């Protein structure tokens, strides 16, 4: 039997961000299982790509189906923006996969 990884869900939220668009991560701290790292919340970055739509992990963690599926984006942040004392190159970036419901237009 081959492993099955589903990336297309019939019931999904429509993507609302375009590649290259500036977005800001919501600065929220709800309880429960969250896939958005704490350190990136509140920071602004650029949509690098749409990865597909997936059931919401925050709901899956509570034994629900996580539907409608949420668009998941790879968002690119400048290291210098994220870490005030960053000593590397200006060109260095960190890319994080973030669900749409954690993003707002910057």
């Amino acid at each position, binding site marked *: *039997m081959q*492993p*099955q990884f589903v990336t297309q869900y019939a019931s999904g939220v429509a993507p609302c961000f375009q590649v290259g668009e500036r977005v800001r991560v919501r600065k929220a*701290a*709800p*309880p*429960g*299982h*969250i896939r958005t*790292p*704490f*350190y990136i919340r509140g920071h602004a970055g650029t949509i690098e790509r749409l990865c597909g739509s997936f059931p919401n*992990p*925050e709901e*899956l*963690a*509570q*034994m629900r189906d*996580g539907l409608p599926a949420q668009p998941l984006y790879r968002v690119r942040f400048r290291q210098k923006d*994220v*870490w005030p004392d960053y000593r590397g190159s200006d060109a260095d970036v960190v890319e994080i996969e973030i669900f749409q419901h954690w993003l707002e237009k910057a």
Partner: protein
Amino acid sequence: MTRNQKDRGQSPISDTSAPAMGNRALTPIFSRGHHDMGGEPAGRVEPTEHDYAEWERRVDALVVLLTGILGPKLMTVDELRKNIEALGPQVYDSTTYYERWITSVAQTLIQRGIVTSEELGRKMTETQNRSHHDMGGLPAGKVEPTEHDYADWERRVDALAVLLNSKVTVDERRKHIEALPPQAYDSLTYYERWVISLGQALIQRGLLTTEELGRKMEQVCSRSS
């Protein structure tokens, strides 16, 4: 006007007028989870190569099977994560990676109603109480099969057991082997355990007394020295 009346309708977060509260009123109830430590001060990460213990491979396989990558889905990795993240900071820091996994798997299966706390508790007690010889499924090193011949005394012990079969059953001999304390069990070879259990079984059957066996052993030992 009481303090309660004055504060009515005001969000506690916007109330910065009470100096006794300090920053407390501004601190969110939920902040960074202990596990979510990206960017926190830490020592240097030293990457090391290491192999996995057998039980760790088994925990990994269990999660693969439970999350339905190959069959029916009994839990999600998000539940696994949720229950890892729910560990207290002290427990989180003092457990290893796969220890956290198996703790979380147990919690998740209880939450899902697949096992009950009672069942799990009973099974854990049973495992802790298992006899030392009954080691099937326990973590162990790799079994290295080797070819070897038997010593003359080993052949004789085997023959003795065959000849005494009508007097002493194999189950009696097993019972005496299994009654060996763990240290003795581990330090003896296969036929050493056999000969000890034969002696014990013959004594219990009344075919030999402890005294007779003791005297005979003394005799043999003094002859060889």
